[in-house]
């Protein structure tokens, strides 16, 4: 992983994304039929298992940044919450960054935006677990990271492209690796 504090911060908070995320993912959506029909009945576009897996992998990335945002903004929140969205190197990385913020008494605010760009199945990893690669642009321009004097320590650029490896574990799809590819 190639994240530093600013990139993490910039990529950190993601609550304001539902629309963007929905626009970028193949999550099942309701498709209202024309109003001329007396009793409208929604038709649901069903996804194949592979498509559903991709959608879940994308959501895994969105959930990760959601949790990272929340933990950055609330220094008293337990970092145990990361366990539900990350594993492996990514879990270690985000844990370390967030403990670093707290050691430096930095508090976040705002939310970052996850712009999903691509997702594809990546086969099984060394442990035989299914994996997917998700690429997203994380926009943290609407976030801050302030020290105890109120000074914002973040600086541009605020948009970084991340490539995440999502792995299927027993309970959920978790982000196992996160790599910054560059600005976006």
């Amino acid at each position, binding site marked *: 992983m190639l994240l530093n504090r600013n990139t993490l911060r910039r990529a950190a908070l993601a609550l304001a994304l539902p629309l963007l995320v929905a626009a970028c993912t193949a999550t099942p959506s309701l498709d209202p039929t024309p109003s001329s029909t007396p009793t409208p009945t929604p038709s649901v576009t069903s996804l194949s298992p592979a498509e559903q897996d991709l959608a879940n992998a994308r959501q895994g990335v969105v959930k990760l940044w959601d949790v990272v945002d929340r933990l950055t903004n609330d*220094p*008293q929140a*337990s*970092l*145990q919450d*990361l*366990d539900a969205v990350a594993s492996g190197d990514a879990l*270690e990385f985000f*844990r*370390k960054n*967030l*403990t*670093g913020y*707290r*050691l*430096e*008494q930095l*508090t976040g605010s705002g939310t970052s935006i996850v712009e999903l760009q691509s997702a594809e199945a990546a086969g099984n990893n060394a442990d035989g677990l299914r994996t997917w690669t998700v690429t997203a642009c994380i926009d943290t321009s609407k976030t801050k990271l302030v020290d*105890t004097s109120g000074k914002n320590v973040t600086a541009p650029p605020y948009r970084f492209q991340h490539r995440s490896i999502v792995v299927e574990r*027993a309970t959920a799809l978790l982000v196992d690796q996160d790599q910054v590819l560059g600005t976006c």
Partner: protein
Amino acid sequence: MLIRALAAVGLTVGALLLGPTPANAAGPPVDCGSDAKWDGRQCKITATNSGRSGGTTLSDSGGGGRSAPRTCSFGSIPMPCQDAQLGWWSASKSCYIQLSDPQPPQSAAAWGGRAEGAIYDCALPRRGVFGGLQYRFWSSTAPAGPDPAVLAQQAIASMNLRPISIGIVPEDRPGSVGLVGMPVWLWAASPDAQSWGPITRSASASGVTVTATAKVQRVRWQLGDGAVVVCGGKGTVYEDRFGKADSPTCGYTYRKQGTYTVRAESQWSVAWSGMGASGTIPVLLTDSTTITIGELQVITTG
């Protein structure tokens, strides 16, 4: 004692011209180090001394295979390597780590279904709203722990090592005067475990132990006139029956009269091992005394 004997009436000039003991052609029985040479019975340096001050010095310099106690930090922020409440600092996790006590039940998510290993706390010092327990995690082995070199230093501290008590003739007391050209005997008086070794102590923390054994390797005698004699052993205690003989193990002969401060630097070597690591730590302890060397003059009258 020797000096008393030498000062007695009736000394002959011949007695003042005792020659040195023939050098032993065999190799030195002790390691004299790079700054001394074996003269047949002792390591001897005739160069100017290092000027080390007296008193007790716990030295952490020099020596190979030594592990310096580590220092801990977060970025540019120095962090104590150990926190009494939170455990040991982990640089890889940026928090203090210690075994969770009590251990969560096996049904806890932190175990991840594993049966071996243990659960550890990752915590930060409290600063306002910041700090406290951050998370718990599983690890098959202790991810952070005491520095074995630090434990070794603790073990050394518990030994209460002392420099040797200087044994010397002429003695450091009023009326005791040596003579130019006469042998001065040097030895470690009443050596015991604390002043000569070997002595072994252990230090433990977080369930791990480091054991250290210390013993004196050599004594570096600074005679106060610029000469240095290094002796690998304790020296030989002078007795009156030895008369004006040279010490068979550790001695010196002054060439000028004067009052000299003699320093005896005990050079300890402490070998430690534990936690899969080992090393040696040199310890230097110094004692000093003052002696007076006079010159015998023959006055011819009539």
